[in-house]
């Protein structure tokens, strides 16, 4: 059974450091905030699932660095942001596997939806110094795709309701999230 951590930032800039010694899931919800996150996977065979979900109104940054300090450690990062206005949103996402750590899995998926003409940047970095690592990254910046809107609307769903469905699906991107722990964030989605 993995340890589960909930973090909700509301208009604040915070630093977080986690030294992980057991399987952990972190749900990090951020409303118009900047965050600096450092994670050390400090025990062999541990896994980390990190879900970062962010609603952004001003210029903000999200830095996250995952250090695979032990063998056979596993990280999966899912970073989703919605950039509401014409501001800057930057994600720097580092996965680090030194030569001393073998058979690690280090994956990251980063997506920012620009609701307006915001300047969003994603820097996905995989700093791998070992040959036996399984590692992938993806990055998408843009709007919700036209084909997705068309599909939803072709079933009678209005544009506004379709947007709301997509926003909820995008920002609450795990079925296991306990909704009562993130009420503030859920309320914020409704305001977008």
């Amino acid at each position: 059974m993995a340890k589960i951590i909930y973090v909700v930032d509301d208009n604040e800039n915070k630093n977080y450091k986690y030294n992980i010694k057991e399987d952990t899931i972190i749900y990090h919800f951020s409303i118009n905030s900047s965050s600096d996150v450092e994670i050390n996977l400090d025990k062999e065979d541990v896994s980390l699932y990190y879900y970062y979900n962010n609603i952004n109104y001003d210029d903000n940054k999200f830095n996250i660095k995952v250090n695979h300090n032990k063998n056979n450690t596993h990280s999966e990062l899912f970073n989703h942001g919605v950039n509401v206005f014409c501001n800057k949103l930057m994600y720097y996402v580092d996965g680090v596997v030194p030569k001393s750590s073998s058979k690690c899995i280090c994956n990251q998926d980063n997506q920012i939806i620009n609701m307006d003409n915001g300047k969003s940047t994603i820097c996905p970095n995989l700093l791998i110094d070992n040959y036996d690592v399984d590692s992938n990254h993806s990055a998408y910046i843009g709007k919700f795709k036209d084909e997705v809107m068309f599909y939803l609307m072709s079933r009678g769903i209005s544009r506004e309701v379709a947007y709301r469905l997509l926003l909820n699906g995008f920002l609450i991107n795990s079925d296991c999230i306990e909704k009562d722990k993130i009420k503030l964030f859920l309320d914020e989605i409704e305001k977008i």
Partner: protein
Amino acid sequence: MLEINHLYAKVKDKDVEILKDFSLKINSSEVHAIMGPNGTGKSTLAKVLMGHYSYEVTSGVMSFLGEDISTLEVNDRAKRGLFLCMQDPTVIEGVSNSEFLRTAKGEITGEKVNLYSFIKDMDSAMKCVNLDSSMLHRSLNQGFSGGEKKKNEVLQLKVLKPKFIILDELDSGLDVDSLRIVCENINSYVEENPETSILIITHYPRILEYIKPDYVHVMVDGKIQKTGNIDLAFTVEKDGYVGIGSGVDG
């Protein structure tokens, strides 16, 4: 029910005209099939009817139940009763099948959908199309096989109860058993809703053996060139489009 007169449509922002003087009338309870060579405009017709963002109607009339639908939003066309069963249904990550269907049903009917009765209805509908009930809670079409996607389209039409169904290459990507199941479900839907009309777009007559058409049309270069009964479909399969004198060069 559906009347298309002298319709011209092109790719948006490009000078590529695809539908050229296309006309077709489909009465209620009728089943029509359109066949034709690749690139002749069959799927474009389906998308234009539904109001797809890639195409623009330049002239002509599309009338559904007596109303011109050419300026209606996509969702308003669906609310009037049009349903496009897509050739390659879109994957939507994060939006569960159940959330999507419940929302769509609420939007179509204008009524709040009771969760308990919805889940109960879905359970039996999913059994009918031979889909595992766990798929209701998965992201829409994500990780679904080709066959499961098509079954999911048919599940949607059973829930949303349209008046006019467009089947755009329903048979592509379906094995024989899956094709039989989805066609049986469409036929039972039509039995329950006998006013329903169907437009089938296909390359092969196999689907027409399950859903019997009243008319088969051959479309070439953006318009209908020949009309007949189901025998025309078998002739096309045997002799090709050149053999039936549809205007296609050999």
